[in-house]
């Protein structure tokens, strides 16, 4: 697109000048998506740990459902949350529609399966490695689940980051339940959608570049922390001659 250079310049300008209430929008994007990620982590990882350890009839089906939920369309999630939070819906009394809280709820629903499903994959590997040893140490099922989570913490960071990435980049659900209200529920993605619809493609692209830069920074910071942690914890395996 021939707009690229001007979009890049515009992006730099946006950041430097703090125009467009940019910092407020970035701040809200980060707050909403980080909170959704924290909640999704709090729900998704214990769920994954339980699925990694538990053996019960229907477990395979549960895992299949979980994996299928990776593909949840954001708009459907948004619609579901809208219908729940609408005054005409079951949770209308709470008055949460068109608030950041509603956006957190929608994003949490959207990314909990992502955190859980990706987390489950590494937890299953860790369980294969640790199951016998942790039983040998006399751990109960619950203790084993927690220990697996602690041991896999650096691998699980990937799952959490994937969840955050999806949350911060998502537009369909937050548009519906947040309403893209200026100064209240406008986040990076809905601002981009708005500018696109106003035909201001350069500004939309500039906002997009800022969003990408944010996502990159968060990921870079997380990988740095993970690498440092990994090294100090001896993640690199040296397993005797046995």
């Amino acid at each position, binding site marked *: 697109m021939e707009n690229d250079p001007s979009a890049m310049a515009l992006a730099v300008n946006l950041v430097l000048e703090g125009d467009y209430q940019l910092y407020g929008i970035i701040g809200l994007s980060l707050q909403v998506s980080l909170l959704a990620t924290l909640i999704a982590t709090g729900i998704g990882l214990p769920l994954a740990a339980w699925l990694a350890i538990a053996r019960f009839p229907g477990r395979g089906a549960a895992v299949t459902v979980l994996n299928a939920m990776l593909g949840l369309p954001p708009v459907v999630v948004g619609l579901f949350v809208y219908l729940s939070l*609408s005054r005409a819906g079951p949770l209308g009394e709470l008055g949460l529609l068109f608030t950041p809280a509603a956006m957190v709820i929608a994003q949490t629903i959207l990314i909990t399966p992502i955190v859980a499903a990706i987390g489950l994959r590494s937890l299953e590997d860790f369980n294969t490695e640790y199951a016998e040893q942790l039983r040998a140490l006399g751990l109960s099922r619950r203790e084993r689940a927690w220990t697996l989570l*602690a041991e896999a913490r650096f691998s699980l960071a990937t799952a959490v980051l994937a969840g955050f990435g999806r949350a911060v980049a998502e537009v369909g659900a937050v548009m519906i339940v947040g309403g893209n209200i200026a100064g209240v529920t406008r986040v990076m993605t809905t601002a981009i959608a708005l500018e696109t619809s106003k035909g201001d493609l350069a500004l939309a692209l500039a906002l997009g570049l800022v969003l990408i830069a944010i996502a990159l920074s968060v990921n870079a910071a997380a990988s740095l922390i993970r690498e440092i942690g990994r090294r100090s914890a001896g993640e690199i395996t040296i397993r005797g001659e046995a």
Partner: protein
Amino acid sequence: MLKHILTRLALAALLVAGGLQNAQAAERFITVASTTSTANSGLFDHILPLFTDKTGIEVRVVAVGTGQAIKLARNGDADVLFVHHKPSEEAFVADGFGVERVDVMYNDFVIVGPSEDPAGIKASSDVLQALNTIAQSGAPFASRGDDSGTHKRERSLWKEAGIDSPSGDWYRETGSGMGATLNTAHGMGAYALTDRATWLSFKNKDGFEIIFEGDKRMFNQYGIIAVSPDKFPHVKIDDATAFVNWVVSKDGQAAIADYTVGGTQLFFPNAPMQGS
């Protein structure tokens, strides 16, 4: 170890949630369900601060198509409805969802398209002839297809022109907002019906211009309605009424008339004059 991590997570969650609380700090606000044309044209950015300064009431605008805005209000998710499709608005009030419908302002719809006017509609005597010419020439036409006010108007114009349900390769429903539809039309060199305000504030129009305008049938009236507290007790009727009254007041009407883009006035106030 894990407890530490969990404690830290919970702490972080509280901090972030605390931040959100601050973001929502405004105590007194109303929610207005309106259309993209009023919001995207910058009209609200111009007039709402004046109202907020005067009354201390923040106005939160959810800008969607007229059809969706009416659905939001019918679900009780807005305090005020500010849209542009009179028949739907009157039905809304008749069904008991709104207190009263008041005219606020008008502008008009225009047909935009490639400057070279491939179907040759520029010289049409009226909009009906213009639409018929487009249909016969097979030049592409991008329709909103989203049950918005503009879409409803477009459908009724087609009907008046004797084409009950336009269809074929040339007729493309985008199923999206005005801006997205204009972007699409621009991308495929199609004609489109749009309100003048959105068009004037739309930026992506290289090689595109207004091809046909000025037919009385393309008059675009906006109305405002406070959502009925009888239907939804939670509606902030006092503040909603304050807003409605202000919009149709001398001050509000003057603020609307003041708003221009590139020297062109976008909306023309026409609220019935009030005593006060």
